[in-house]
């Protein structure tokens, strides 16, 4: 059996907002994340996919205890992160790092590459010797494919892909067990995306890292994930093994997301039909009753408008929140 590093149970993050003007006392609740559960093993990658506003980034921050959950627990190696005092939590943070979406914006423009990568070391080990810092910075740079002679340069001297390598080196320098990657390749050119994904995959194998890889489109996570979770309006709609999810998704929303990815093949693209998905995502402030997806779902029945579908386990071991999961066959046609 593999070692479980993280267990998330019924996690919810709600934000209280004030309605109307500043002086209004009427508040209401935005449910950014609602009832999300999953386990994560050592060396495993969980892909999290959903459209903008579905709560993926809020979830990422809650996993790292950067936001307090309103309900539920995040267990790291068996310990509830939100029950730890500040000092104990700080120690745990060494194990858990994050890589952000916009690589240039996430790096301080006035710091050199050395200082950027070394900063976590100074933070956690204020008494660390200079030689040791240099050695570990060099090691981290080598792992991500940066050259030693680039150590004194500033972020603006690098391209987007290289900046993301610096961000990854900064995450690696503390030898973490988990890296949460929040849309790490969305801002990069396709040709460079593949480089970064391959790098993360190689590092994971070498270091037995666990990865949570967040993206807004299913094509990117396919190549790196072992399992994929699909989110919609803060809820987990499906959590399946990678191959099963891309072959025969269980939730109509997953199927729509797969079909919406444009195919770089002119004959197939010309023959492609509409995804059948109309409209925009409803406002998370005012989610529809019943299944949150029902307004856009082509398989809507009466029950979907009345009753919230629970996330339940299918025979295959995959999870889905859809009343009609058993009767729908959403197999995706494959070419080549």
């Amino acid at each position, binding site marked *: 059996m593999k070692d479980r590093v993280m267990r998330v149970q019924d996690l919810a993050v709600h934000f209280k907002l004030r309605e109307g003007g500043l002086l209004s006392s009427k508040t209401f609740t935005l449910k950014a994340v609602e009832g999300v559960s999953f386990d994560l093993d050592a060396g495993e990658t969980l892909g999290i996919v959903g459209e903008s506003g579905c709560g993926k980034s809020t979830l990422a921050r809650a996993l790292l205890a950067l936001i307090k959950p309103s309900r539920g627990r995040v267990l790291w190696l068996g310990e509830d992160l939100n029950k730890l005092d500040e000092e104990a939590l700080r120690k745990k943070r060494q194990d858990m790092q994050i890589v952000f979406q916009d690589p240039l914006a996430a790096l301080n423009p006035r710091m050199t590459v050395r200082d950027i990568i070394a900063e976590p070391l100074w933070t956690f080990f204020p008494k660390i010797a200079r030689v040791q810092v240099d050695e570990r910075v060099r090691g981290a740079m080598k792992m991500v494919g940066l050259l030693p002679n680039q150590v004194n340069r500033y972020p603006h001297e690098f391209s987007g892909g290289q900046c993301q390598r610096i961000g990854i080196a900064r995450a690696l320098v503390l030898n973490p067990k988990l890296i949460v990657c929040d849309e790490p390749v969305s801002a990069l050119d396709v040709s460079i*995306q593949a480089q970064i994904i391959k790098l993360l995959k190689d590092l994971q194998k070498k270091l037995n890292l666990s990865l949570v890889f967040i993206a807004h489109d299913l094509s990117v996570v396919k190549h790196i994930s072992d399992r994929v979770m699909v989110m919609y309006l803060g809820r987990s709609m499906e959590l399946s093994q990678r191959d099963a999810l891309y072959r025969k998704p269980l939730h109509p929303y997953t199927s729509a997301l797969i079909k919406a990815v444009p195919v770089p093949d002119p004959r197939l693209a010309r023959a492609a039909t509409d995804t059948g*998905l109309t409209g925009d995502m409803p406002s998370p402030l005012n989610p529809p009753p019943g299944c949150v997806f029902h307004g856009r779902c082509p398989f809507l029945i009466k029950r979907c408008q009345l009753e919230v579908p629970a996330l339940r386990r299918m025979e295959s071991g995959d999870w889905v929140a859809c009343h009609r999961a058993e009767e729908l066959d959403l197999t995706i046609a494959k070419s080549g």
Partner: protein
Amino acid sequence: MALLEVKDLDVGFDTPEGEVHAVNHLEFSLEAGDTLALVGESGSGKTQTVMGILGLLAENGHASGQALFKGKDLLQMNSLELNQHRGSEIAMIFQDPMTSLNPYLRIEKQMIEVVMHHGGLKKAEARTKAVELLRAVRIADPERIIRQYPHELSGGMRQKVMVAMGLLSEPELLIADEPTAALDVTVKAQITHLMSELRKKSNAAIILISHDLGIVAGLCDRVLVMYAGEAVECGSVDQIYYEPKHPYTQGLLNSVPRLDRPDDTEMVAIPGNPPNLLSLPGGCKFRDRCPKAFDACTQSPPMQVGQDLHAYRCFLGVPT
């Protein structure tokens, strides 16, 4: 006569570090009803090509060569003359819908301004037309939406408004710069579907700038691949996707994550990074990243025209 014929287009910028050559000797032409895609990595000169043609370059930029729109050279026109074509016969959909819509004006005002100016329509007529188009781009409840300000709309809706604005003047040439880049996949699919439908109806020529090879495959007839300011390959969409000749085009196609292929298909990255435009290498500009580079590549390869006007800039495949 071609609708748009671009000949020997150069676009450069004066910077404190020296002259940046964003576009070099670019040639292409477009007939009514054609759709041409400009593809390439960021910094390859796609956007600056159309900015140059439309006289929209930054202060320190300059364009030379010819851009003949219905026989008249756009590059020789002053801004008054250009304005007779821009916004009426030629419309542009800009990349970022948040920064290209005026935050102080209601959607209504921004949409009808253009048609009232160019089409000589009365306010009420222009408004009716704007509402019709918002409905055509499948915005629900357009009568209400048209009264709102840009910040009240979602990103997808703003982009749909931009598309509707681009079509409002019934242009003969529509230029769309990454019209779907910032959007979610499901909205992306909606917008693409919409553009191809509207194109069938109006027979407008379209130039689509995109790095998304999936969108290009579904929407365009011809593709021009750019690298470091140069055209490296040009052909029909089928030629480019099924028989790519230039190693860069092949690399771009292989690096796209594919859902339509077997699960174990690997994506292959193009190694290295795009070159610095301030100090371009001599010879073939792609050779540092090219897996097939050989001795001859230190010379500049000429553009060769193969079968059915499929052109590519590479020494490989030169008949000896």
